[in-house]
């Protein structure tokens, strides 16, 4: 338990992941689900960026020539998160486009009502 106060970034990242996941599972509105998914994404990026930090060192930009590896933080998780942010915006844009088409067809954004309407359609079309 002592480590959780030192590792406060990772602990908060994990709690945010749980909050986002709960929002993703429990909300019935589709847009709230997408917001929950985005919160989960950014929580994971916070975890990764915190794993790359080394206390007392600076950002990995060589301003005065190469000074050895003990003056800069770990740049590898930064690269991973950079790709992740762009993938997250792509997934969000695609799911929002799907939500627009779903609304065009079913005139509602409530997942329960969409499932009921789909079952009704399938029941009518299979008759």
């Amino acid at each position, binding site marked *: 338990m002592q480590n959780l106060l030192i590792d406060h970034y990772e602990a908060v990242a994990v709690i*945010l992941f749980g*909050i986002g996941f709960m929002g993703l599972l429990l909300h019935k509105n589709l847009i709230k689900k997408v*917001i929950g998914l985005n919160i989960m994404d950014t929580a994971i990026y916070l975890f990764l960026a*915190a794993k*790359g930090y080394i206390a007392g060192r600076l950002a990995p930009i060589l301003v005065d020539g190469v000074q050895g590896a003990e003056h800069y933080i770990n740049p590898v998780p*930064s690269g991973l998160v950079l790709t992740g*942010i762009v993938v997250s*915006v792509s997934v969000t844009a695609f799911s929002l486009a799907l939500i627009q088409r779903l609304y065009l067809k079913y005139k509602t954004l409530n997942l329960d009502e969409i499932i009921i309407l789909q079952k009704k359609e399938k029941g009518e079309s299979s008759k």
Partner: protein
Amino acid sequence: MTVLEYILLGFLLICAIAANLSKNLLNAVLIFMSYSLIMSVIWMLLQSPDLAITEAAVGAGVTSVLFFLTLRKVHQLRGTRDE
């Protein structure tokens, strides 16, 4: 600096919980924009300026614009010109 970190992390948790609990969809998207901004500041504190610039431009910029456009298309914004 640690006090600032704790305050920012507390704001993050409050923003995440508030974005989930808000009933108005427009409010939820606005709170999500501020969550993205605070995340960008935290990454600046973790000495990663690339991530901070990208998150500020993408999260608090383009993603939120896409959310607002979707809200307009699904008729959740009041006072716009279409019915």
